[in-house]
């Protein structure tokens, strides 16, 4: 399956899940600041990985991978699915 690409600033401003609408400051793969350092490798890896960190608050999410998809839950910002 194709992974959902990392959340863009645009998507975060109009999120489908609940929670405050802010620009995501964090890389959802490595959990580091999205605007600091190079996350090209993270983006490439995300093709074959679900997100691990909430892009909005940097919390580690509870991630369940199943054969045909995944879900990732942040206690504060709700669920993402792919």
């Amino acid at each position, binding site marked *: *399956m194709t992974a959902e690409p990392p959340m863009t600033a645009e998507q975060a401003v109009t999120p489908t899940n609940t929670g405050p609408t802010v620009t995501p400051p964090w890389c959802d793969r490595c959990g580091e600041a999205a605007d600091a350092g190079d996350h090209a490798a993270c983006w490439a890896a995300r093709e074959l990985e*679900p997100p*691990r960190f909430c892009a909005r608050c940097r919390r580690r*999410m509870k*991630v*369940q*991978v*199943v*054969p*045909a998809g995944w879900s990732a839950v942040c206690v504060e910002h709700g669920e993402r699915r792919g």
Partner: protein
Amino acid sequence: MAEILDQARTQVLGNGVGLDEAGVLAVLTLPDEQLPAALQLAHEVRMRWCGPEVEVEGIVSLKTGGCPEDCHFCSQSGLFASPVRSVWLDIPSLVEAAKQTAATGATEFCIVAAVRGPDARLMKQMREGVAAIKAEVDIQVAASLGMLTQEQVDELVDMGVHRYNHNLETCRSYFPNVVTTHSWEERWETLRMVRESGMEVCCGGILGLGETVEQRAEFAAQLAELDPHEVPLNFLNPRPGTPLGDQPVVEGRDALRAIAAFRLAMPRTILRYAGGREITLGDLGTRDGLLGGVNAVIVGNYLTTLGRSATDDLKLLEELKMPVKALSATL
């Protein structure tokens, strides 16, 4: 043609007797220009001793993360700074995952838990989960729950689990470099009990953990001695935060050499492409492997990472005229 391939043509293809450790090492160290011939021979061996069918399996993690063991490749160990958090799958979602797997035509559904061995809670979840799947889904259930006691082996048989996966992961001589919280021999003991119980033994490992090519040959020989029904072959996908997080991935040609060599060591086993094929070999690798000795695939996602789409794999099987093994053929 390399001498070892001539020998394998007679011994393995002709007589169905696998290569020994020295023979496997000779295949693993063949020059690049001999690789197509090795893959071709491994394919012929698979077709002769296993047939054209491909066994398709889906896997799911019933309990993810928080494992007390320290397998250095594993993102689910609770001992490393891995971002994988502990999570349990509920039974309705487990049944749904089995349905998704069956919908691809798969005959095998393997339930996996990140544990040293099962506790009472996990065994209860298994009992309920397996019963719920059997009531609703036409698929065979396998399990991978770590090291077992004899009572747990008997319980799994009683639940109707038909195959048990427990990987030796790597050869005996290298194992202490990869795992320090339990031994290779402890794993072997679980495999022995599984074998004696009548469940099918599924045992493989991961290549690219830093083992030498000699140790890869040692591993193939040790697996051949165990003679498992199925051997899942993984290639390390280095996981952030684990001790092997910076390990280089296995080079594509070395991965294909290993596939051919493992097939030539075990002419009759189900040799399954498991995790890491997408990273090591890219999209083309799946085809090369299926034409080089592999006769089983995991479709869809893995336990904590994602795989190629099941549709792509099934299309490829159709194109290669390799029928998906039917449930009736496995019963």
